[in-house]
């Protein structure tokens, strides 16, 4: 909290003693007023909902595909060997490089944006799931074999709970990436969302709106990370997330 108050003060001071005009470097008070205006006339809420909707769908899709894929690749050696080169090849390609193809394939609208978010969260999730599966203490699988677990029981009672602490960390990282990507994607592929708000305000030379949009993006990012962090408080993952 103190950090933000200081930041606010420094911002105001720079504005007072700087030579920039309000159009280029607005005062924090102007930005706050604009933020209030945007909120009151409903624009902000509309764009927030649009962005969060895309992130939610894309992120859930990545979780639902990425984690099972990671478990398969981590547990079955031949699947891992088969798909790992492909994964390593696609992983360093920025999701933003997919924009032209995404627009060509899915047109303009929510789908290409969701696709980009899916890509951005999918790769980190798969990679960390594989790593987590591979680092499971082999003793647990021996215990499972000793107690006659079948494959399903091994997956649900050993593999999943064992990787959960690292997967939660990966979820925190990938939701942040997804949030970064949605804003970028919205500047190109769609006509709504916080990214679009910023781009549109820039075209209108309203830097106060641009900054208001940035503040909202930062705040939502904090909230998302906070929500993800709550997962670490689940009792059955604390063995792996609690600092010793």
């Amino acid at each position, binding site marked *: 909290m103190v950090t933000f108050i200081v930041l606010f003060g420094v911002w105001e001071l720079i504005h007072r003693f700087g030579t920039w005009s309000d159009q280029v470097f607005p005062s924090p008070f102007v930005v706050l007023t604009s933020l209030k205006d945007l909120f009151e006339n409903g624009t902000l809420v509309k764009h927030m909902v649009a962005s969060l909707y895309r992130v939610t769908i894309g992120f859930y899709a990545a979780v639902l595909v990425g984690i099972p894929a990671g478990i398969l690749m981590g547990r079955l050696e031949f699947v891992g060997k088969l798909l790992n080169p492909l994964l390593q090849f696609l992983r360093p390609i920025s999701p933003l490089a997919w924009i032209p193809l995404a627009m060509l394939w899915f047109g303009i609208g929510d789908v290409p944006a969701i696709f980009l978010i899916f890509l951005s969260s999918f790769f980190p999730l798969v990679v960390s799931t594989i790593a987590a599966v591979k680092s499971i203490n082999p003793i647990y699988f*021996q*215990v499972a074999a*000793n*107690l006659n677990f079948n494959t399903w029981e091994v997956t649900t009672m050993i593999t999943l709970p*064992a990787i959960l602490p690292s997967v939660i960390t990966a979820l925190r990282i990938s939701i942040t990436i997804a949030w970064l990507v949605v804003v970028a994607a919205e500047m190109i592929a769609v006509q709504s969302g916080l990214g679009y708000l910023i781009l549109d305000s820039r075209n209108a030379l309203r830097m106060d709106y641009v900054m208001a949009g940035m503040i909202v993006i930062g705040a939502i990012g904090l909230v998302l990370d906070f929500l993800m962090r709550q997962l670490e408080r689940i009792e059955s993952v604390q*063995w792996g997330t609690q600092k010793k």
Partner: protein
Amino acid sequence: MSRIEIQQLTKQYLNRRVHPRSGDDPAIKPGDTFDVISALDLNFNNGEMVCILGPSGCGKSTMLRIIAGFDVPSSGQVLIDGRKVREPGTDHIFVFQQNGLLPWMTVWDNIGLGLRHMKDKTEKESTITEFIEMVELDGFEHHYPHQLSGGMQRRAELARALAVNPNLLIMDEPFSGLDFLTHMKMREEVVNMHEYLRKTTLVVTHDIDDALIMGDRIVVLSSSPATVRLDCHLDYDRPRDFEKLPELSQLRSEIFFMLGVNYAV
């Protein structure tokens, strides 16, 4: 309670070591296979507590893993009550050195793991309660393993092993890593458990006193390949007191000497 027959058991490993250690057989080159266990014959009787001693790396853990079904022999076989061991199962439970409890489950759920297919819920609950009380963990049912002390973790693991009512218990250095007092208490616990349940129990240990105090029988293995150097029965009542049993002290010195320690205190 089972009879275990180890017949002509051989386990070969590939020598991956490029630079031989001192004491390695110079005839074994990198890439060669060598015997860790060579044509080993051993029988364990029903209800016996057998303590297995041997220099480190002599193949005693490998032998246990084969008996448990975690590892396959290169040749020969292990029979439990006349049936060949092919895979792990609840009939022959392996108790791990440490960290065998699943850390994401409470003590209660860990002990209930082997009973998960039990139809009768009340019977299942009473069985879990029975074993929790047996290892004196009542009050800690809903604790997670990382909230327990090392000794309590071992006791919980012992309870989980016993809850499935195995015929054979296999313990690989069950007291390693425990502090002195916990070690003594845990040893007492295992002895009591054995007196009470009379399950065939194999204990690999490097602590000669453990073997002398616990064992109905002591088997000393030689180093690579593992062969039987000493096999003796101890028909003494427990608790055993070295002071009053000069034969035990004598045996203790002999085993120490056999394992290369000349002046054991």
